[in-house]
């Protein structure tokens, strides 16, 4: 089973600071990590490979230093990597990103499955997975929480929905996004770490991919960021104390006072 995983390098969100003047995130000095949702995608790809054989390729679009996340996933057990890196890719929204990743994925022969994390923790759009599927013209299943079986050119999965789950059968090749319920990502292995250390990542440019220039980067992005701002601080808050009965009557008095009941 030949599987590709799309991964993204993101700022470590456990320590985010916002520039009060511009309202944007301060990226300087913030360590970069593998998007946490992508770790589940990588784990699922490696587990499927261990069960069914084949090969796992990880793909990322980003600056040259994004090679670090590729090293990280090689240490976990990914076989091959592809780095899409070109100044022309800069400023891409989810539309241009999906197009560019799609071009990279088309270079892989006999692909059976593409797995993405459900979303990245920086943009939180959850649009790139489905966008990639559209660009490849492949069926798509979002929020997969379990792969039930694979065989006969098909895959049966459980996908998470608001109040339960659906069982879906999909023809392969296909694109899926996965949620954190699907597995527990493994630690790197020593052999993987040694392989990652020696890994040389040759980036592919827009020209290498044969990209149409008006479809990539900022020019290829219909989304325009008009304004970035921090949400205003919450209004006045009050904590009611006392026994449950006292709290209830206090609450009723307040609500009656502002004439909502």
């Amino acid at each position: 089973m030949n599987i590709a995983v799309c991964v993204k390098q993101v700022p470590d969100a456990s320590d985010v600071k916002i520039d009060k003047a511009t309202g944007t995130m301060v990226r300087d000095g913030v360590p970069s990590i593998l998007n946490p949702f992508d770790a589940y995608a990588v784990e699922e790809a490696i587990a499927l490979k261990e069960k069914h054989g084949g090969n796992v390729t990880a793909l990322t679009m980003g600056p040259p230093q994004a090679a670090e996340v590729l090293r990280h996933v090689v240490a976990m057990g990914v076989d091959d990597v592809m780095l899409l890196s070109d100044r022309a890719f800069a400023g891409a929204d989810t539309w241009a990103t999906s197009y560019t990743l799609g071009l990279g994925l088309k270079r892989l022969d006999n692909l059976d499955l593409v797995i993405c994390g459900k979303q990245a923790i920086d943009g939180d759009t959850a649009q790139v997975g489905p966008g990639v599927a559209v660009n490849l013209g492949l069926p798509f299943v979002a929020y997969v929480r379990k792969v039930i079986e694979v065989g006969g050119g098909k895959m049966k999965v459980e996908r998470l929905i608001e109040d339960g789950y659906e069982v879906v059968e999909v023809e392969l090749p296909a694109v899926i996004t996965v949620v954190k319920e699907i597995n527990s990502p493994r630690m790197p292995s020593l052999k993987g770490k040694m392989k990652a250390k020696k890994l040389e990542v040759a980036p592919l440019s827009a020209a290498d991919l044969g990209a149409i220039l008006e479809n990539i980067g900022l020019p290829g992005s219909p989304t325009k960021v008009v304004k970035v701002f921090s949400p205003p601080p919450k209004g006045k808050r009050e904590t009611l104390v006392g026994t449950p009965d006292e709290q209830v009557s206090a609450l009723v008095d307040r609500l009656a006072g502002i004439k909502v009941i």
Partner: protein
Amino acid sequence: MDYFLTDEQQEIRALARQIAEEKVKPVRAELDEKEEFPWEIMKTLAQADLFGLYIPEEYGGFGGGSFDNCLAIEELSKACIGVSVSFAASGLGAYPILLYGNDEQKKKYLPRIASGQSLAAFGLTEANAGSDAGGTATTAVLDGNEYILNGTKQWITNGGEAEIYSVIAMTNPSRGGRGASAFVVEKGTPGFSFGKKEKKMGIRSSATTELVFENCRIPKENLLGREGVGFMVAMRTLDKSRPGIGAQAVGLAAGALEESVNYARERRQFGSPIISFQAVQHMLADMATQTEAARALVYAVARYLDSDPKEISKASAMSKLFSSDVAMKVTVDAVQILGGYGYMREYPVEKMMRDAKILQIYEGTNQIQRNVIGAALIKEAAGKKA
């Protein structure tokens, strides 16, 4: 201190440290409380390729040595030596095969141990044979193409959990120490069962059981080396594994020191953090110095062993003796620095102090280590005269 580790050794240390932090620390108190074998962690260590550090590549290992293994053991021990002994004891069970097995035996067993697919264990101790291995009562009698084993081994680490056991039994009791032989016995062999699981003071997540042999028949091919070399196998195995106990001790002491420093910086009395008081600083200074001295000795001995010298008993015994005495002292001091909190199970140093005691006892008590060192001194002095 920089010990000039190679790139590979730095990776081994970083990986073991990550597992200790993320997988061991969060569960160590619960494993201790429930006396539960850490299978999940063993699986993680297997997946991380850490079980075969000292096993040659041709048998599925990493092709490193004692030192590489000690680095992994030390990092795991910073979090919990109940976990690290379960890891290290697989090596103890593997060494007899590595040192005395023929190519066929190595090919059969070592890849399973190196991958972590199977744990190994070493069966030497009996009710009346510990420090004095000459009292071994388990027998192995050749009958056609099979040996028949009878007897009971006691306090065997990884007992019941391991699948591959290296066992010492008497093939010729009349010859005493020269009548012992070493065998490989696999879990599931008819006549081979496990006795009670011991309830221990510390390292409670590790499994310690009896191995019971009742007319247990094993193929003749399971003999390691030849008949009569059993105690040699045991002694050389322990010589190889003792720096691993030293590494456990260094890790445990380092873990206790870290807890002590962190606590002393936070705990305020008389208006200041207690680390500002010289009485506390001096205790911490001694703990740090002793831990570093133990580490330097263990690293030096492990590197020396990896140069494959002829005589290693003395150095090996020293690395275990000194470090385990340090670990005992440092963990006692850690409890003292944490005061009342240190005595409570809510804080990790209480467990560390309970755990430390075994390091002065197992794989040869520290009194036996002094005997080994003393005997080597006598031998060296006698050699000079001649």
